[in-house]
């Protein structure tokens, strides 16, 4: 039954992918020896689709994400956004990092407003309204004037999320953003992310090593091999949302994923 689902993809035929990686290969030189980290990685993320990339630590997930973000240039192959090859980081593809990358000298409110302030077309009133709206969306209205060092790591991740969502990027790239959170906070953040994604309808590419997390979040899962990093399989998840790990068929997806990962 699950195998059958792999083949069906309702969105694939509909339009140009929001983001497409074509034969992305990445080699690093380590002590004069060339090491292939990514080997001809190809996949497409469609509009408003939630794609998870799953693989063991060291399979090149983060490298792939950095290439998609424009922080790294691939050795071969290319990444296109709406059919145009990317060259540098840009606000059309925002990244939510795993680490704390908030500006420590700005308050929660100022961190969230930072991206909007870069555009002179945004009036002060517009920025204020938007920041207020997103503060409420991520549940941090009461913490607007706190500094990053004064709030918990779960709250920091909410700020990271809000400062990216407020820019309404076409694509959001997420690099194990909840990996350092405790179980409960992680579940809260997953639910928050899904509800924000449904409300704001963006394209999300979410890197994780956590199989449960990938099934709870993703419309489809790209499963990566290690050494060299390759896309092994694409798995479409057709569970009703909101999802939880006790849902029917959850376990069978999990089995399939584990099987692919251990191949």
């Amino acid at each position, binding site marked *: 039954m699950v195998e059958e689902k792999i083949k069906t993809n309702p969105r694939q035929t509909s339009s140009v992918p929001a983001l497409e990686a074509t034969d992305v290969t990445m080699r690093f030189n380590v002590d004069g020896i060339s090491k292939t980290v990514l080997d001809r990685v190809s996949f497409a993320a469609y509009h408003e689709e939630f794609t998870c990339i799953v693989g063991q630590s060291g399979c090149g997930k983060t490298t792939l994400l950095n290439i998609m973000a424009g922080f790294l240039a691939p050795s071969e192959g290319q990444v296109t956004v709406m059919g145009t090859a990317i060259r540098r980081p*840009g606000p059309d593809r925002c990244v939510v990092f795993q680490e704390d990358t908030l500006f420590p000298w700005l308050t929660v409110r100022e961190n969230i407003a930072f991206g909007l302030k870069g555009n002179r077309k945004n009036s002060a009133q517009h920025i204020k309204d938007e920041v207020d709206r997103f503060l409420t969306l991520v549940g941090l209205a009461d913490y607007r004037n706190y500094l990053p060092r004064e709030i918990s790591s779960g709250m920091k991740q909410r700020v990271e999320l809000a400062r990216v969502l407020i820019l309404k990027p076409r694509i959001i790239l997420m690099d194990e953003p909840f990996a350092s959170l405790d179980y409960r906070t992680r579940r809260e953040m997953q639910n928050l992310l899904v509800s924000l994604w449904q409300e704001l309808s963006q394209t999300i590419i979410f890197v994780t090593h956590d199989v449960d997390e990938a099934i709870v979040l993703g419309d489809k899962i790209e499963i990566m091999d290690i050494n060299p990093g390759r896309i092994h399989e694409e798995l479409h998840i057709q569970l009703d949302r909101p999802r939880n790990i006790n849902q029917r068929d959850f376990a069978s997806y999990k089995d399939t994923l584990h099987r692919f990962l251990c191949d």
Partner: protein
Amino acid sequence: MDRNDDTRKITRNILPWILPSALIVLWFLISRLQIIPGYLLPDPITILKTASRYIFAEPGSSPYAGRFIHDTAASMIRVSLGFLLATILGLPLGILSGRVAEVNRFFNTFINGLRAIPGITWLPLAMVWFGIGVRTTVFLVAMAAFFPIYLNAAAGARQINPLILRAGAMMGVGRVRGSYAVLLPGAMPHIMTGLRLGLGISWAYLVLGELTGVPDGLGAVIMDARMIGQIDMIIVGMILIAIVGKLSDTFLITLLKISFKSARRMP
């Protein structure tokens, strides 16, 4: 609980003054008991009298009387000019060399070589170049203050968390906004250290510059007093430099904190 806090607060406020007060008491005892004769170390009362004459008395009523304001103003102008020059050169250059490897390679050897020359050895050359007076002093101050400002700005810019820069880039920050909205605040703790060290050393080189025989300034007074054997005036000069130097440091910190969020919100 509250009482504990109060005690702690009082302790915290008293602590810095214990050592200076003890030293003054010791000094008082030493001169009163004639352990060290007055012509080598005058007693605190004499110092106090000399200081008050220097600061408050009618000018001309005795040597150095009432010259304090004029001397301090002269010294402060020299320090400010030299320090400003060092900041204008050292800060941008330091940040640039901390971020751009080529700039660092271009300047590093030269600047570290220059730094190896003791600042005092510039004095003879500066006197030939600029004569005696403001320009020599400003040159010496700028020369000395440049290095800590440059080196700390470079270290600060180099040690910025690269992920913060990435975060800026992905939010669409360009080079110009990146410099003042991400780079400068990110390097602020180091920049502040560099500026404070630079200002501190500025006062040291001010005295060096003023020892060459300029007519006014706190350093000039000290040198002048030595020639006519007024030990008390030398000590007054030293103490006043300490006080003015400390105040200028506080002023610098306050100014930075008023001007920059990143300075205000440093942990």
